[in-house]
């Protein structure tokens, strides 16, 4: 099945794909030995140091780490927005060099086109891939219903709240039916209540889209609530410290935040992060 291809007019976001032979044996995303070096005024800065990880099809992975650990850089590189880099990135078996329509991205800021209505923002992607206005609008209307913004289909972004704008941004990223959805702290700019609602919405949405999701955040709670697997990154240089499988039952919601199994996992995460923090502190002290 082609990325962005739609078999029938009615949007069936719930996996129209049957796994092909290649899908079964190869992960959706393969990152091997990824290193990224930035030139700064103070010389070269190793932002990301030999990071390797795979993401199987349909998995929801969260990357957590302190600000400046290079987690967003890793995500941008998978998106094809960051060059040059060392190492290899394969998405659906193909090396990444530039943005691809089968990879969708949601940024920390919604970055909606301010001159377009909600519907036309979401229809933008399908239009760019050669769909007729009618087809693109049909896709947009289905997604508008899914993210619960039917009343706002013809509204312009500047009239929407931050949470609603971000829902439009998610719908827009899904309009091209991406195989991989990258999310860069998409709820980071929202207030705590809206963020919890958005997390629950995303968990619900995830049951309908079967895209592989890589979600970057600095919030450990958010990572554990959402993810199948959490990658913990350290700062300076960015490295993967530990991977944790989140074996909490689904469907989940923010309600699990107080369950013992959840708290045990969170303790594991915090131990790793605290140990790394101490190590980094001692190192800087000695240096």
């Amino acid at each position, binding site marked *: 099945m082609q990325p962005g291809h739609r078999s029938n007019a009615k949007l069936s976001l719930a996996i129209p794909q049957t796994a092909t032979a290649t899908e079964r044996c190869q992960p959706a995303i393969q990152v091997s030995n990824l290193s990224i070096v930035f030139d700064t005024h103070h010389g070269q800065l190793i932002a990301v140091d030999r990071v390797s990880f795979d993401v199987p099809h349909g998995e929801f992975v969260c990357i957590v780490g302190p600000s400046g650990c290079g987690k967003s850089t890793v995500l941008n590189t998978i*998106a094809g927005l960051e060059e040059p880099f060392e190492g290899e990135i394969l998405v659906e078996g193909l090396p990444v060099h530039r943005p*691809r329509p089968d990879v969708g991205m949601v*940024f920390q800021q919604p970055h*909606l*086109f301010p001159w377009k209505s909600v519907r036309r923002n979401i229809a933008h992607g399908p239009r760019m891939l050669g769909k007729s206005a009618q087809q693109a609008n049909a896709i947009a209307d289905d997604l508008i219903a899914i993210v619960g913004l039917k009343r706002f289909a013809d509204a312009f972004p500047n009239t929407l709240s931050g949470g609603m704008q971000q829902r439009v941004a998610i719908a*827009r990223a899904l309009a091209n039916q991406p195989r991989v959805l990258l999310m860069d702290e998409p709820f980071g700019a929202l207030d705590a209540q809206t963020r919890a609602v958005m997390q629950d919405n995303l968990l619900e949405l995830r049951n309908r889209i079967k895209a592989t999701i890589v979600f970057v955040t600095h919030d450990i709670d958010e990572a554990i609530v959402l993810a199948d697997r959490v990658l913990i990154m350290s700062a300076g240089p960015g490295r993967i410290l530990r991977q944790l499988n989140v074996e909490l039952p689904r469907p989940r919601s923010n309600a699990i935040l107080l369950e013992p199994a959840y708290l045990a996992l969170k303790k594991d995460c915090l131990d790793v992060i605290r140990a790394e923090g101490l190590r980094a502190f001692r190192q800087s002290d000695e240096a």
Partner: protein
Amino acid sequence: MALDEALTADQGDGRVRARRDAGRLQRLNILIGALSVPAFVLLWELVARSGIVNIVLFPPPSVVAVAIFEWMRSGQFFLDLTASLYRVTTGFTVGAALGIFLGIMTGQFPVVSSLLSPLFHILRPIPPIAFVPIVILWFGLSETGKLFLVVWGVFFTVWLSTHIGVQKVDRGLIRAALMLGTPRRQMLQEIIMLGALPYIVVGLRTAVSISFYTLVAAELAGTFAGIVYRIEIAQQNLQTGQVMGGLAALGLISFAADRMFAAFAERTVWWR
């Protein structure tokens, strides 16, 4: 009145009084605003007729009004107006189109910018009026010369604001568009153009008044019809009323043009 005050006191609510006072103040301000121009005209009439000033050099508004009326009745006003408006609109259109096109080119393509920007930055600070002598040498008193001056004045303002606007387009929008598979052509025509539009529109509005400045220079340089030309002829004939009438007409036209453009701008960049 007493009852009124008693009521206010009874309610003991200072806010009601405050609101009433604010309303009174606002009405007073509107009244004063409406009286501003008539009061000024009346003062002018009185001073001009009082004998303190030379009535030939400083005619009262009634004389100016008669001059304007004569100007209109003779049909000359309409000819002057069309001549001037034609120069401003064609000059503005050509200069703005050139400015937007080259602004997008230099803003988007570093090679084009390296080639043209240094040249434009050297030419831009020279006041367009300073080009009048050479324009007369090149084009004589022809319409091409007039057009050249207006285009010259408009172009640099629009070019610079477009150039800056293109460079200030939100990178986030561009990245989002890239992730959605927006091809290069669409990126330039839609995302960059509309992203830069708020800046372009500000440049265009500034250019509206600049086109009137340059019109003055162009018509003073010598021509056969036009509002400013009429002012100059009237000055040579010591028709001071006509001179002032011309000034008033010029002020009104350029005011109307600015207002119309502001309304147009608000519609074009409604999302701002």
